[in-house]
C-alpha cells in the first residue's frame, strides 16, 4: 500500500510546520490551535482531529515530546531533532519564496 510518510521524507506539511513552531514553548493541544490561529491572523486553523493525529505522529517521530505537568491536559515541547527539521524546512520554504520573488520582480522591471 503506498503510504506517503511526509516526516520520513523530511518535508513537513503546513500544519506540522506551524505546530512545531508553536511548540518552541510548551503548550497543550488547544493552546497550539489558538497560537497558530493568532500567529496567522486566522489564515490557518487546525481542527481537533487533525491536531490530535499530528501530535501523535510528531511524538512517534521524536520531533516533540510530552512534558510532565500538573495541568489536566498533556503539554508538549519541541525536541532538538524537531528544531533541526524546522530549520531545514524553513530553508526549503525560503527557497520557494526566493524563486517566486526572482521571477515576479524581474517581470516587473521589463
Amino acid at each position: 500500500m503506498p503510504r506517503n510518510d511526509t516526516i520520513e521524507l523530511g518535508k513537513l506539511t503546513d500544519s506540522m510546520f506551524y505546530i512545531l513552531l508553536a511548540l518552541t514553548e510548551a503548550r497543550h493541544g488547544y493552546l497550539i490551535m489558538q497560537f497558530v490561529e493568532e500567529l496567522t491572523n486566522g489564515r490557518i486553523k487546525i481542527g481537533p482531529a487533525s491536531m490530535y493525529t499530528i501530535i501523535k505522529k510528531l511524538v512517534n517521530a521524536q520531533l516533540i515530546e510530552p512534558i510532565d505537568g500538573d495541568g489536566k491536559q498533556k503539554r508538549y515541547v519541541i525536541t532538538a531533532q524537531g528544531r533541526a527539521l524546522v530549520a531545514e524546512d524553513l530553508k526549503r520554504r525560503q527557497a520557494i519564496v526566493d524563486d517566486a520573488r526572482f521571477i515576479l520582480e524581474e517581470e516587473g522591471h521589463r
Partner: protein
Amino acid sequence: MKRKYMSSWGLAFAEEREMKKLGEMAARGWHLEKFALLGYTLVEGEPMDVRYSLDYRQRPDEDYFELFAASGWEHVTSSGDEIHVFKGSPDATPLYTDRQTTQEKYGQVERAMGRGALICLVISIGLMLLLQLNWSGTAEAIIWIVQTLVVIGLVFTGLPYLGFLVKRKQLERND
C-alpha cells in the same frame, strides 16, 4: 421522551450525507442520541442549529475528548470505542483541516476492514473445502450455519473496505 429511528446506508458510503441529514433533523428538533442497529436513534428536543461530524480513533485517551470539547465539538456518542460522533456550532473549525490527516482518517479504518474481510474470506474458503468431505446430516447443517455467519461477516467488512478504498483513492486523486 419520544424517540425515532433513522436508518444508515453505512458510514463507508454515506458519512457526509448522513451527518448532514442529522444536522437537518436537529434543526427540526430530533437529536442524535446513539448508534442503533444499521442506523441511529434520535431523541426529541428543542430545535437546534448544529453540525455533526465523526472521527475514527481506536481507544482514544481523555485528552482527545478534551481537545475536541475545547474546540467547540461536544462528544455525542461512540460505537465500539472506535467511531466517535461530535456536534458543534456551524462556525466551529472542522475536525479535519488538512488533506494528509483526512486521508489517514480513512486509511486506518480501511486497513481494519480489509483485515476483517480477509479473515472472513479465508475461513469461508476453509469451510467450503470442509464441506467436500463426508459429514453426517447434523454436522453438515452446523457447518452451513457457521458458513452463513462468516459470509455475513464478509459482507459487513468487505463492502465497507471497498467503500473506504474508493474514498481514499478519490482523496488521493485530488492531490
